[in-house]
């Protein structure tokens, strides 16, 4: 799965570079506007180590932000799953807020918190929080009637059991949305850094933009893509481990009635 991710990314990346180079040679653009392969390679040698460090910085902020937003989404989603006024309010608020591009609030956050990691962390958390919350709310609000029926009838249903049943039955959806939120968190952090931060790969891309250095930007994009593929592959692996630990090894059903 990881190999496939990496392979797909590399295909898309080199296709993109190919299109740029086609544009360069087709339109006769200089290395100043679109760098040639030699310049890209030289820049790669010069900057990869630094950009790896930058992307690790960005990823660390994105991961912490994602974890915080997962925990908060689980908490609010579990609280909001009921049909009480609070639950309805939470659902309506989540639905409306998630439609707003949170990254547009980044400048305000940077003004208030400065350009250090707290602002980046907050933006990363906010960006992936609302879609996560919506998914968790959807999962937690939908009864699994086939399983819950017995416990409700016999008076054994507790909120912990209800949450456990619904989470378990939707473990696939949950792991998918968590893996997807990784991309959101990373993208949001990079954009926030691009806007106003003083560290991270987004900041480095901004500098490269000011320097009109497309070669640096291409190297940065490559490093981001590899790192994100590795991270998503890791999340998928974690999801499989969670599933197999919780669901158990697939076994052969007993054959027929004896």
């Amino acid at each position: 799965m990881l190999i496939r991710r990496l392979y797909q990314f590399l295909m898309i990346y080199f296709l993109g570079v190919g299109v740029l180079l086609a544009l360069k040679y087709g339109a006769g653009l200089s290395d100043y506007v679109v760098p040639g392969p030699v310049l890209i390679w030289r820049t790669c040698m010069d900057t990869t180590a630094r950009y790896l460090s930058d992307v690790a910085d960005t990823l660390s902020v994105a991961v912490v932000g994602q974890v915080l937003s997962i925990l908060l989404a689980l908490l609010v989603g579990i609280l909001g799953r009921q049909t009480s006024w609070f639950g309805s309010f939470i659902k309506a608020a989540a639905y409306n807020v998630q439609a707003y591009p949170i990254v547009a609030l980044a400048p305000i956050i940077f003004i208030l918190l400065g350009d250090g990691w707290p602002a980046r962390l907050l933006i990363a958390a906010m960006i992936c929080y609302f879609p996560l919350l919506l998914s968790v709310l959807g999962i937690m609000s939908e009864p699994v009637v086939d399983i819950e029926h017995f416990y409700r009838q016999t008076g054994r249903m507790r909120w912990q059991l209800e949450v456990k049943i619904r989470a378990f039955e939707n473990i696939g959806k949950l792991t998918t949305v968590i893996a997807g939120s990784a991309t959101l968190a990373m993208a949001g952090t990079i954009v926030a850094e691009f806007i106003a931060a003083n560290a991270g790969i987004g900041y480095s891309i901004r500098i490269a933009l000011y320097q009109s250095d497309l070669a640096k930007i291409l190297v940065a994009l490559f490093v981001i893509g590899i790192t994100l593929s590795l991270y998503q592959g890791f999340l998928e692996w974690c999801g499989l481990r969670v599933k197999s630990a919780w669901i158990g090894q697939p076994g052969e059903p007993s054959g027929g009635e004896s």
Partner: protein
Amino acid sequence: MNRLTLQQFLMPVWVLIFAFAAADQARAVDTVVYRLKWLKNMSTAGDLVANSLGYFERAGLSVTVKAGGPERDALRELELGHAHFGVASADQVIRARAKGAPVVVIAQLFQVNPLQWIYHMDGGAMNSPGDLENKTIGVTFGKNDEIIMRTLIAGAGIKATSVRLFSVRLDYTPFYKGQVDLWPVYINTQGIEIGEKLKRAGVAVGFFDPSDHGVRFVANSVVTSRRMMEKDSTTVRRFLGALLEGWRFAMDPDNAGRTVTVVQGFDRDSGKAVLEAQLEATRKLVRPSSDTAIGAIDVPAWLQTETIMLNHGQIDAPVKVGDILMPLSASQ
């Protein structure tokens, strides 16, 4: 992928390529775009006067003057056809030429480079490039101040890791707050503005001038593409003629009042007194003496800029500066 789908897939690429080629024909028109290096302020007085007081119009040109900024690059825009003329400093032009950018210089607006760094005097005076070590230095990445500062640092033998370069945009707050030790300013505009503000606040400031330490780069110059020069030299002459007339008007002390009024229409944050002081400072940079021709290209200064950049590793090889300097008389 069948043949039809491949053609459809490549269609946008062909359209893009043909659009660039067709742009050549589009340039033989009277509507041009002029991309400045930075914001519209007193450093662009002549540009704004040329447009606002009808010099371009009388030359038969409709000119859109666009402000520059951190993300803007006139040289890139020239090559991509987004602009017909631009303003860039010599180090920017030389670095772009080193990468093959087909840019030519048609006039030099500043005869004296206004770029300096302002700093708080409470840390002591900064008398040599060695004083830059262990400092946080503001630079506008991609602009001439980055190149000049790197040249100063390299020239002083300071390790790159011994200074922290801070990305400068449009807000001076990091300098006011003391997060940044040195802040790049044009001495004729931001130098006056920030200097006045800090003086009123009782803060003593100094100015670090690269030219005092042997780094004398040529500053704002008017550029265009080689393609424009070869295919539409008439428009180039008309544009430059009108532009330099605007600068001559703006730099004439008798026209100070009108020039300030024009610039004030674009730089609404600066008061009249500040603008007047800026105009006087700008005049000394554009026309340091009465026999200086406005727009004249100082070829030795360009060659020196190239040499310094080469010696400090900013470029790998000479770029034949002489080939890209095309003053108006040479282009006629």
